[in-house]
């Protein structure tokens, strides 16, 4: 446990710095855009309603959708830029709205006095209205700041480093320590930045007052100190970093984290500098490997077949492998080779229950299906594969329940359901010694792990050589054990990577 904690804390500086830079950049840009917009809205009755409506609508978009849209608008670009743009958009509503409210709430007798002594409209704005509206505007900035710190965790999904890396990795690998460290760090940063803005505001208000000046000076010095420190940390991220030779990436589940770690390890051993972008969405990743933002990751043939080639039907494992390799070739993505395992859906039962009924394939289920309870993850019963399975075998279950994947396995083990839609490389299949039923009628798609590389990376022989050993090197059984180390035994990703590495070296 304390090993785990140490491992997490080692990641803290990089995540902190990424999160801070992202938040500060987005808030700064948000303020630079939103305050002038608010001023404009307050002055122009015609602009006000449309503008407020627009920023409100942006806010009603689910934050993940905004991130995905920005990535798409940038032509599939991942990393800092899309996260920065999405967070900036998200920060606008509270700042614009509070700027308008603040300006509108300045007493009309004060504005009339300013006009009456001969101030120009600009002077009235700068010297009277803005300063008087400032507390309300700053309150808006503080709201935006707290939101942005929280939302920045999501930017992990588009490949920007943040405390979200802790949270998403932690959730997927059931590493509660990582989730806790990430959440606490994010909350702490929100509170810290909020207090900093409050302190700056307080100092600005006290600027003209001669209260207890030694105390004021001390506070001012410490605030300046913190500002300097925070900016230094944030700006450090803008310094030209030593550029990584390759970017290895992965999707949001344990197997992907392990495979990315394994691939990155091989490249590093060959002397390359590697960046890892973990926890990305599927579409984002495929786009990124096509345009070369990502150099290496593990995809699945079934995903390419169904989602990117938009094919229906199931011609069988070999046919899909061949079709996918041809398709990738046309798309300018290099298929380095298969991993050796396939992670597809399979119907699974407790071994004792299967023996009791004498079942080893889906065909054998047919006489009983009407009386059986089935459990699946949240999407299985909505996928074409289930429809095909239902039609090809002409069967249905007495009841179909959906679960979070980890609960689905528990439900099966505790005999609440008879059959589940397991994943073939899931560690829990090994841990609970489940029986995976054969699928003689080929209802379920094949999902061979396939190592994809960008054309740019694949052009380097040393790169190809470094990852060669992984091709066809990991049978289902081995991947299941690696997944099990993390998902069932609570080990870290690194432990699972080392395990795989050691096992492969034996052969």
């Amino acid at each position, binding site marked *: 446990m304390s090993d785990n904690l140490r491992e997490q804390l080692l990641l803290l500086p990089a995540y902190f710095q990424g999160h801070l830079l992202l938040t500060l950049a987005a808030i700064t840009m948000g303020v630079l855009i939103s305050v002038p917009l608010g001023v404009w809205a307050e002055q122009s009755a015609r602009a006000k309603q449309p503008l407020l409506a627009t920023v409100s609508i942006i806010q009603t978009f689910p934050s993940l959708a905004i991130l995905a849209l920005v990535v798409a608008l940038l032509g599939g670009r991942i990393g800092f830029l899309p996260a920065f743009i999405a967070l900036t958009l998200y920060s606008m509503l509270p700042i614009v709205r509070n700027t308008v409210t603040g300006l509108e709430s300045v007493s009309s007798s*004060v504005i009339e*006095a300013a*006009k009456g002594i*001969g101030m120009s409209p600009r002077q009235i704005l700068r010297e*009277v209205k803005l300063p008087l509206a400032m507390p309300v505007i700053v309150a808006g900035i503080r709201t935006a700041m707290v939101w942005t710190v929280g939302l920045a965790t999501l930017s992990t999904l588009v490949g920007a480093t943040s405390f979200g890396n802790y949270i998403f990795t932690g959730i997927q690998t059931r590493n509660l320590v990582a989730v806790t460290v990430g959440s606490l760090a994010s909350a702490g940063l929100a509170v810290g930045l909020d207090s900093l803005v409050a302190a700056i505001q307080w100092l600005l208000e006290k600027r003209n007052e001669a209260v207890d000046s030694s105390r004021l000076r001390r506070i001012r010095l410490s605030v300046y100190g913190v500002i300097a420190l925070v900016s230094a940390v944030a700006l450090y991220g803008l310094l030209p970093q030593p550029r990584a030779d390759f970017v290895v990436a992965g999707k949001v589940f344990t197997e992907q984290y392990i495979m990315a770690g394994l691939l990155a390890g091989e490249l590093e051993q060959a002397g390359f500098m590697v960046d890892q972008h973990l926890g990305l969405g599927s579409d984002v990743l495929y786009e990124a490997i096509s345009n070369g933002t990502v150099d290496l990751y593990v995809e699945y043939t079934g995903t390419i077949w169904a989602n990117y080639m938009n094919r229906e039907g199931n011609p069988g494992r070999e046919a899909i492998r061949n079709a996918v390799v041809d398709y990738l070739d046309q798309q300018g993505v290099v298929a380095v080779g298969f991993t050796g395992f396939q992670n597809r859906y399979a119907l699974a039962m407790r071994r004792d229950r299967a023996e009791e009924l004498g079942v080893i394939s889906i065909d054998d289920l047919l006489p009983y299906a009407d009386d059986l309870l089935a459990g699946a993850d949240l999407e299985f019963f909505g996928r074409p594969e289930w429809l095909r399975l239902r039609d090809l075998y002409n069967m249905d279950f007495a009841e179909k329940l959906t679960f979070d994947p980890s609960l689905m396995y528990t439900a099966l083990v505790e005999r609440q359901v008879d059959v589940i839609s397991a994943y073939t490389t899931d560690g829990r299949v090994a841990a609970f010694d489940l029986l995976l039923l054969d699928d003689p009628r080929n209802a379920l798609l094949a999902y061979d792990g396939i190592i994809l590389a960008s054309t740019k990376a694949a052009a380097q022989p040393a790169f190809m050589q470094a990852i060669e050993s992984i091709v066809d090197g990991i049978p289902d059984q081995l991947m299941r054990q690696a997944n099990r180390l993390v998902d069932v035994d609570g080990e870290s990703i690194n432990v699972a990577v080392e395990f795989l590495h050691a096992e492969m070296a034996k052969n």
Partner: protein
Amino acid sequence: MIELNNVQKSYDGGTTLAVANTSFVVERGEFLGLIGASGCGKTTTLKMINRLEEPSGGEIRVNGRNVLDQDPEQLRRNIGYVFQGIGLFPHRSVAENVVAVPRLLQWEPDKIRARCEECMDMVGLAFDEYGDRSPSQLSGGQQQRIGVARALAAKPEVVLMDEPFGALDPITRSELQEEFKSIQRSMELTVVMVTHDMTEALLLADRIAVMREGVVLQIGTPRELLNKPAHDYVRDIVAMPRKRAQRLEELMHDE
């Protein structure tokens, strides 16, 4: 100096007139009192002189030039104005409020500071004690005095005052009235002062204009108004101070 010719003002596009066909002249160094019931158009008249409101008809001249031909900001910087709602800047210190106009006129810092002390002394609030305070730390009457100091700070030749002494106790009030009257005399200020208080008008003003429902009923020296009131309303309003004095007299005799 200030000249109104058939000036009209309507806030509702002509349906009702807040000020109707008003004409009068205030000579250089003259002190005009403007008196009348609440809502009769006194503030509106004052605001039109420095273009806080634009007249709907007629013509206003300050220093011989139509105000509509003058740059409104320059015009306002050269006219001191004491607002009915005081209108101090709550985010500025008292001293900064007093010197707001000299700042706009970009006076030298030394001169600004000296003038600040002078003006605050004039209204009886010591710079050292009150200068650094924020307006919210002053009493209502003190705020009003700072409003007067602000109007005088840039040494304007024309001063418009909208009930400048309303919130003061009688003693401070009469001190300040005398102080102001002597400044007005020595600097030959041209003043239009709105008041509800006939006694104040009689004591300070060279001439008094009596307004009712947007119309100036009569304009003249206190003596003219007392001796030859042109209207029942004028007679009643001018007689008020004397009536009250008589009532006081009777009360004393009853004892």
